[in-house]
């Protein structure tokens, strides 16, 4: 049995529409400095950070090998520096593996993205499509989500009113989160009156463009207990890839999410996921995804997301107390920000949005058109 891995410290910038005055290296430094301060770590060969894993994306950054620009911040002088070019929560997966393999004891994870740098986030995600069959018709992640939302609306009890409540609640939650100072707070009526973006997704259903960075320190069990009083243990991880072509999938089946969740639950030794988690953070890039992903995680009855919302399920189950993706953070970092938020909750450092005595939480990330790739992490404290 491999050794346990703990999250020892978490730091993040605010997530804002346009940090035009700051380079992405500067955002990352804003995360690195508090992490070093909180943990007392450095990059020394003996006891320091043994591996830095950054999360970024060459296309969003418009930089080939975007981590090359980050080496100073990542302490890469003669050190191990690697980049996860995938949904940010995968840096947790990779850091966990590197520590459990025995190769390294302390890992820095640092994700950053300036979505504001590009003219259009949709133009970036358009480039995820193949050049022959799907780019020529103009697909991007928003249009793909529109089709999934349409299919989910038909297959579930979720209505436009339910989704308006999801968005309104996200704004209310974001108000309690100092990391999301700019998040708009909409009333349900305002959401319902907002224009369609990609039917049935309305303009207010979509997560805002934002800039920001997030990081954490991971350590092997014995080191983790030295570094901090209450490490948050990564007890389960799981992810899964679905088919590429939208037409090859059943868009409402939650195929990849179900598998990702089952893997994470199995590794965490969880047989009955319901009523197991004190706090849940899921990447709801569009409002329909909050109930849909909750169903995929096996935490809400299939096709009954609407009733769950109407019955106050999100509050009762402490879902996205941070405001979630709808409150805004870069696409690439969704799952990593979720994991950071769950960690803050389990560390008792979540301020006004703190869930009393939270001991076990779930963080979720998603990437690709209509949820082609999902990843789940289970975090726990002693």
């Amino acid at each position: 049995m491999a050794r346990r891995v703990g999250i020892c410290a978490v730091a993040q910038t605010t997530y804002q529409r346009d940090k035009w005055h700051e380079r992405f290296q500067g955002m990352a430094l804003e995360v690195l400095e508090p992490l070093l301060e909180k943990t007392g770590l450095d990059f020394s060969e003996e006891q320091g950070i043994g591996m830095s894993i950054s999360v970024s994306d060459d296309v969003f950054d418009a930089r080939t090998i975007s981590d090359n620009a980050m080496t100073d911040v990542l302490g890469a002088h003669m050190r191990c520096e690697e980049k996860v070019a995938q949904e940010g929560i995968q840096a947790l997966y990779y850091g966990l593996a590197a520590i459990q393999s025995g190769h390294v004891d302390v890992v820095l994870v640092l994700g950053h993205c300036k979505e504001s740098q590009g003219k259009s986030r949709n133009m970036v995600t358009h480039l995820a499509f193949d050049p022959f069959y799907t780019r020529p018709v103009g697909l991007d992640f928003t249009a793909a989500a529109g089709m999934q939302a349409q299919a989910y609306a038909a297959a579930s009890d979720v209505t436009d009113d339910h989704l308006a409540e999801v968005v309104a609640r996200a704004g209310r939650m974001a108000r309690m989160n100092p990391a999301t100072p700019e998040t708009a707070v909409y009333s349900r009526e305002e959401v319902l009156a907002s224009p369609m973006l990609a039917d049935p997704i309305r303009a207010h259903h979509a997560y805002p463009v934002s800039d920001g960075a997030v990081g954490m320190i991971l350590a092997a069990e014995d080191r983790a207990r030295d570094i901090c009083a209450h490490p948050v243990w990564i007890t389960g991880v799981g992810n899964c890839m679905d088919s590429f072509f939208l037409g090859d999938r059943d868009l409402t089946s939650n195929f990849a999410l179900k598998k990702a969740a089952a893997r994470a639950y199995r590794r965490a030794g969880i047989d009955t996921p319901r009523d197991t988690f004190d706090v849940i953070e899921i990447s709801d890039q569009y409002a329909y995804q909050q109930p849909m992903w909750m169903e995929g995680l096996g935490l809400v009855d299939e096709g009954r997301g609407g009733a769950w919302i109407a019955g106050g399920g999100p509050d009762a189950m402490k879902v996205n107390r941070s405001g979630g993706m709808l409150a805004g953070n870069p696409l690439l970092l969704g799952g990593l920000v979720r994991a950071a938020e769950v960690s803050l909750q389990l560390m008792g450092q979540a301020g006004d949005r703190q869930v009393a005595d939270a001991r076990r939480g779930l963080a979720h990330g998603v990437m690709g058109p209509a949820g082609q790739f999902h990843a789940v992490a289970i975090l726990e404290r002693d």
Partner: protein
Amino acid sequence: MKKNRNVGIIGVGQSVYSSHREEVNQPEMINEAVVEALESAGLTIDDVDCIVHGNMELFEMVHQPDLWHTLGTGALGKESLRVTTGGTTGATLVAAADHLVASGLHDVVLAIGFEKLQEGHTTGGITNMADPLWGRQLQTGALTGMTAAQMIEEFGEERAKKVAMKYRILMDQHAMKNHKAHRRLGLSPDQADELMENSPQLVGELRMIHMCSQSDGACAMVFASEEKATALCDQPAWIKDHVTAHREEMFCIFGDAPVLSTHRYAARKLYQRCGITNPREEIDLFEMYDPSSWWGSDWLREFLLLEGDEHLKMIENDEIAMDGAFPVNPSGGVIASNPIGATAMVRVAEAALQIMGRAGEHQVPKTVNQALASGFGGTMWTVLTLLTRQVPW
């Protein structure tokens, strides 16, 4: 370091490396390597738990290409991880696969490095590496004549140029035995003088003939836990250790070359961790990421912790030839084939094939008990991987 469990390489697959792969699209080219790797491991895709994928996005301008490439990788329904670190990507993919298996998360992992440079604009892509404020105007792709100038200064023009050309011709002779290699020119030693004069100059004494190719290709490798590897494979290539040493982006912007190279630093660290005191004796073969024959010649000194002109003698004495005492790049190396996201993985793959005794025509004529592979990228980054014939931990 106490490794949680041993990891063995049990399968290697490579597409043909070429400047012209018009007959396949990206997932199809990847699939060639995947199919061969699975066949070589005696597995089907159902036996694989996780797919690790890497390349440079701006070389083909596909965002998160593992999504599309699922059509060829076999990732459907499986776990996956995407890691990229520039030129070292392929070596980082090996490190990632090693971690994923050694940690106990997975028993069988398939790692895939690929690039289809023909589809994009490589030098333009590399130039986009540079900082838009500080470096973009100065960047000239991956070309630099600095090493040639330094070697000429240190060892004299005639000797330095002869060594670099001898290295080049030896590598081509190796590539001639590797039917997957991209550039197989059939050079002979008596062409050296002519090439030193007439090959077009790129930067200073870095000539076209010295420089690596720009290739399309994919490499895939199957990694398995000790239990599975032993059951599935007569002779796995075991992963003993790997060391990554990167460095900051702007270390030489003001003209000073680094005093201590990441190559030497990584080598020292690796040898220390693995108890190697005399690398030339204890390591049987070295597969180096050699972007040009100047760098290949020069870097031998760094990787083997040599001083003076020992490294030149190794080239002059044919020690690095396939049948020499210390064979270097029996595959033909990077000068012969360079699909960037796969290139560093191909080094480990070749080292593994040599240990497994499956390198075919380019198998070196001795038992390879311990093999070293290097990856190179970024602004002088190094990854070193040490493979063994015996279960290492």
